[in-house]
């Protein structure tokens, strides 16, 4: 087991965003995390990547307790993530964005980092990476997010809604990309709203609602779980 959380809880003031979550991520799988808006998916990502510390509970990564390990050290241990709303570093070119994580998460020298970054840009098919960021399309920005996360040489990669805002063709290319990453022995968590993507990609799905896990299992099974249906319908009603 690559990652395991134990009764993970996070509250903001009075609001409980994540409530006693026991999440398990197995080595080499692609895990889908789904749930209606406000279910606590992004908070969970933030807890795992170390942006927040939990109010209660523990997080174990490769059998090490990382509950209170700072974010930059988690990145160096191999936990990488993308951001739902892309957060590129605006004062850099696309290429330099990737160099940052190669430099600091891998601890490479500037020369090595440039070499690695170039390879990563090729891998995610980011053309003309020396461009300034305001010239990049949404698809390219999403790919840049992934490229920067790959710079961390991740064992676990959390993709927070990388499909949002993409057209059908771009989505297919993105799915191919994620599949190719799995072949590089990277364990992947996909947080997604688009169900077709989940069904194509994932080995297993976890459903969150109001901060709690309400269902778990293969997509086909979970998709028919009445609890899940109510959660989604409740949202729409």
């Amino acid at each position, binding site marked *: 087991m690559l990652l395991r959380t134990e009764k993970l809880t996070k509250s903001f003031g009075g609001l409980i965003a994540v409530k006693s979550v026991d999440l398990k991520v197995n080595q080499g799988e692609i895990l889908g995390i789904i749930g209606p808006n406000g279910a606590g998916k992004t908070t969970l990502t*933030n807890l795992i990547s170390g*942006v*927040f*510390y939990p109010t209660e509970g523990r997080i174990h990564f490769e059998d090490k307790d990382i509950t209170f390990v*700072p*974010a930059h050290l988690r990145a160096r241990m191999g936990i990488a993530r993308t951001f739902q709303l892309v957060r590129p570093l605006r004062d850099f070119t696309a290429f330099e964005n990737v160099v940052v994580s190669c430099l600091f998460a891998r601890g490479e020298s500037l020369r090595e980092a440039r070499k690695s970054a170039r390879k990563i840009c090729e891998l995610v098919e980011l053309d003309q990476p020396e461009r300034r960021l305001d010239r990049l399309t949404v698809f390219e920005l999403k790919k840049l997010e992934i490229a920067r996360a790959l710079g961390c040489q991740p064992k676990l990669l959390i993709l927070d809604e990388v499909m949002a805002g993409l057209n059908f063709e771009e989505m297919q290319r993105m799915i191919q990309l994620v599949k190719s990453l799995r072949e590089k022995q990277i364990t992947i968590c996909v947080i997604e709203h688009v169900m077709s993507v989940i069904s194509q990609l994932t080995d297993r799905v976890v459903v969150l609602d109001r901060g709690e896990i309400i269902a778990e299992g293969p997509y086909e099974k979970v998709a028919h779980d009445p609890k899940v249906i109510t959660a989604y319908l409740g949202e729409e009603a």
Partner: protein
Amino acid sequence: MKRNFVGYVVLAIALFLIALLRPYAFFYGVQRGSLYGLVALPLALILGIVGLLNLAHGEFLTLSLYMTYLLFTKWGMDPLVSPAVTVPLLLAFGFVVYKLVIERSLKTHHLNLLLLTFGVSIVMVESLNIWWTSRPRNIYVPYASTSVNIFGVYVGGYEFLYTIAVVLVLTGLLLFLKKTRLGQATYAVGQNPKGAAIVGINVKFVYAFVFSLAAGLVALAGALLSVRSSIFPQAGGPFTMKSFSLTAMAGLGNLPGIVLAGIVLGIAEEFVKSIPGYTGWADLVFFVVLIAAIVFRAFGRREG
């Protein structure tokens, strides 16, 4: 919430003890603190809503002092009446400065605004200096030095006007922000300018309005201060940093907190000053309380 409550109780007890032990320090602290608050509110308004630290804030105050002086010496207008003239004049002045200097730079780096207002403050100080020389001027009205008897303590009475004024201005501002359309628009712009623009609020108008309103409020403070202070080109300057300190201590967007911070710092200062032999350390207390409050709040909120 709970910790805040405990904090306030401790604060109240401390203030009560000071009032008991050193009534003068307490009353004078309240008076000076009200003045600091009164001057700080407009700066906080601009900082909170336009997101601009106005380094020329103190110079606006100086300008209003000179205006009050001019009205007093040329036309014999009582300083307490003069806001009728100085407030509109400073409103207009604030508007002109905003339109001429600030507006076109709003979209550039936010530090540019800092430097612009610094430039404005230099130009203002030096112009006043050329016009009036560095020699201080004063307005004398007998009522500025009267005393009142509070529970057997005989203290200066005029400066309680600062307290009255700060309560009125604060209440007025809060009511305005909550109850009027323009006020709610202003509040919305302060929270999220882009969002406000999307829902159809004219952000530039709100900025111009806030800038002029702040200048007008400074004129009010200037009129009250004019009979107690000397009037010279650098008279207002020190108030900029003091106001900035209070705003930071209260936290952005917390207008009542500014008045409270002003009074707490005022009392702390006066308390230290009233201890013979330690008068010179009063400033240290001001800054230490300030830093402690900011750091305490930052650590209280800390995440990850």
